[in-house]
């Protein structure tokens, strides 16, 4: 009976077992609680707005995930199955640590901690951005595979820690609940360079390196962008071209690469042939 009440498509709801129903109900209620606390933006939604609401998810490369302080998945958007092959309803309510690489769990735990800033810093840093390995059951051909034989996929997770402050709603016995922090993340897959689905534009060039970042191959587009000929760069370490202030960040990214397998850097500056940074 409860399953019927859940706002799920009928095909799904009828096939859920009791534990899942419970799980999903709890998560759903939690979500509702969290969302009602946000200030409702009083905007008139145009026709277009409503139509396009559905396209948000589609436009995103990755999926949206909302985590509680302990790592329980409160909400997961549907497109997780495009990205990871796992179904939304299988994961909701479970702990996210079941699906992430054991070595990354420590990092994830740190991310979940919401430190309220001291009086001096009024704004605590709520941004989070990190790489996470999650179980992926998609094979390269696009078929899904059993969870037990899942491979790891690297996701770039970025988001914020928001706090749900129930000061506006109090329970009837007058107890005030403590503010609950939760983490909202958008997880994008890191695009593999060999994936040619998305065409590279002229401002992008490809290069290949050895493990210590020496160039072994470079696309010729680099010539117009930075002035170098590919032959100039061969066998030179790319660290020679990074801006000094960015080298710290890039070194960390390099480390991450070895740990996780895939990584995307942020913006950084690279030396052009005739001086100046690009």
């Amino acid at each position: 009976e409860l399953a019927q009440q859940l706002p799920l498509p009928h095909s799904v709801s009828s096939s859920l077992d009791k534990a899942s129903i419970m799980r999903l109900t709890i998560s759903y209620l939690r979500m509702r609680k969290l969302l009602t606390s946000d200030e409702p933006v009083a905007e008139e939604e145009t026709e277009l707005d409503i139509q396009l609401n559905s396209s948000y998810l589609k436009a995103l490369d990755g999926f949206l995930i909302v985590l509680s302080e302990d790592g329980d998945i409160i909400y997961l958007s549907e497109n997780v199955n495009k990205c990871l092959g796992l179904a939304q309803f299988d994961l909701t309510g479970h702990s996210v640590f079941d699906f992430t690489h054991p070595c990354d769990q420590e990092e994830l735990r740190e991310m979940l901690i919401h430190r309220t800033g001291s009086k001096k810093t009024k704004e605590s840093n709520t941004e989070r951005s990190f790489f996470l390995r999650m179980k992926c059951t998609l094979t390269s051909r696009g078929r899904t595979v059993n969870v037990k034989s899942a491979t790891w996929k690297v996701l770039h997770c970025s988001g914020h820690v928001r706090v749900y402050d129930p000061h506006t709603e109090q329970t009837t016995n007058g107890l005030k609940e403590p503010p609950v922090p939760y983490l909202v993340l958008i997880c994008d897959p890191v695009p593999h360079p060999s994936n040619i689905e998305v065409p590279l534009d002229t401002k992008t060039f490809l290069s290949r390196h050895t493990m210590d970042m020496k160039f072994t191959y470079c696309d010729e587009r680099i010539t117009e962008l930075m002035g170098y000929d590919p032959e100039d760069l061969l066998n030179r370490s790319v660290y020679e071209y990074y801006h000094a202030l960015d080298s710290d960040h890039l070194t960390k990214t390099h480390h991450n690469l070895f740990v996780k397998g895939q990584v995307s850097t942020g913006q950084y500056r690279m030396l052009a042939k005739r001086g100046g940074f690009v």
Partner: protein
Amino acid sequence: MKSIIQHTGGFSLRLSLLFPIPTTTAGGSTCAAALRSLQRAHRLQSVGMSAGDSEGTADRPEEDEGPKQVGPSLPAVELPRKRKGDVEERSDAHVQEPHRQIEKRRRDKMNNLIDELSAMIPACQPLTRRLDKLTVLRKAVQHLKALKAGPSGAFTDTNHKPSILPQDDLRHLLLSAADGFLLVVSCDRAKIVFLSESVSKILNFSRLELTGQSLFDFIHPKDINKVKEQLSSSELHPRQRLIDAATGSQVQADSPVRASNLSTGARRAFFCRMKHSRLAGNHEEKRPMPNSFKKKDSYRYCTLHCTGYMRSWPSSQMGLEGEAEKETSCLTCLVMVCRLHPHVSHHQPKDITIKSTEFVTRCALDGKFTFVDQQATTVIGYLPQEVLGTSCYEYFHQDDLQHLAETHRQVLRSKEKIETQRYKFKTKHGSYVSLQSQWFSFTNPWTKEVEFIVSSNRVISRGPGHTKDEEAGVSKALQEDTKQIPIIPGLSSGLGTMIYAGSIGTQIANELIDSYRMNSSPSSGASSPFGPAQEKGPLVSPQTSRSASSREDTAGSSSQSQSDSRTAEGMSSATSESTAGEPSQLDLDNMVVPGLSSFSNDEAAMAVILSLLETDVNMGQSGQFEDLHWPF
């Protein structure tokens, strides 16, 4: 076997309430009796929930009243569940050992879930007792129904499959995860067809202003080519070649690939820079020159990570004109979610805020420094030891004396922090630095007397032309020295009064001391000389009382001033330093050296006064000086 007894013991208690089984019998027989009754009920129901659940409910003794609440039908429903678990366990005890544990785990899990669920439902919260599972479930169902009927109304949307979260909530979530907005641009002319409301938060432009404009107006000029390519349709840009990253060779761009670029669902992902206005709400500035470059202050660019897909609409829906002449009757657009790029390795400082230099000083009642922060040296040029013991009034600019003295008076009487106005403080090299301070007096809680004044001083940045003005002012003031006596209210003024830096402080302090004395012990011997002393002559008596009182309350400073006076005496003859134009002769009658007076000048004056006092001692005030340790 032990665990069986535990479990059965548990629900035997429960059963005893439901059935007229005598509880006085031993546990074992009760157990057996319970089993029998269960078996009787066996045919009534099929097992709804797993065996584990029934055990779970049995484990909660406080739920005894629960079933009674719900109604008579409950026992019938609950029993079969219990029965099943029990029967199972009883029958295959030795094989079911791990099975029992699995059951237990499932049970516990269900219990936890039920608990969580009850915590979620508002109806369940006020009740302090734990509710029975079914009740919780029923309430959950009711709650969900209520939510459905509520304002969210997501379920009325028949077009889309009902998802666990309605669409606009999803949008809110997305926005809280990343600062982003939805952007729909037409592929042919890059016209902005649609923007979500959140763009105003990110780019500081309102939605209405941007809709309908060309996207290229808002993109950094260098990114225009890139965006053009991303929007491009069937013809590939001549330079754009697909490169097979595995082999490094170029892949022939054949027609299937080309067509797919434009088809619905083709994805795009890129980074671009878009203009954003720094001033939120100020829309007028945006109008002129949308192509301004990066350097302009009013336009800044922020890097956005745009991901999206192509989508085409039949033009009839959009209602746009001018689409008829296109070959395809569809309007193809790129639907993108643009997010502020979260991963910028170097942060460009937007507003560099410099913390202004602050330093703390402490001074005695009369304004003499007793402690000076080391940071003060960077501001005022003097080392701490150079200013200790000198009155702060020596460094204040003449113009500021008035309000500073007033503040001094105020702070001695009040317990709050008082902020002074800006004033100029003389530095070692003769120039002035603008400061603003907060003064706060510290009172000894036992004696209730003000012990010292703490001053937290902040440098106010000054313009470059300042120093010249100050110097000019200084020289002017020097000339006016002998002529003008700054009038400080409350202090004895008049031609005959010596108003010099140190005196201001001490006089103010004295007023306070007087008020203490009046309050505490009006007939103390020390106070008597003040009366006649003040009447006697403004010149001498203030100094007397000042020095006396200052000696009495701060022994340290007295010895210091004494030694200062000695050194001053020695130096007075050889004086010829810092401030030019300073009167070389100490004119007792109207010597005004506020703020400009040098170290030696002050002390020289002091020395003279003390020597005068000496002569006065014989005029009847000798008594008070017995405790003064004068080396004369």
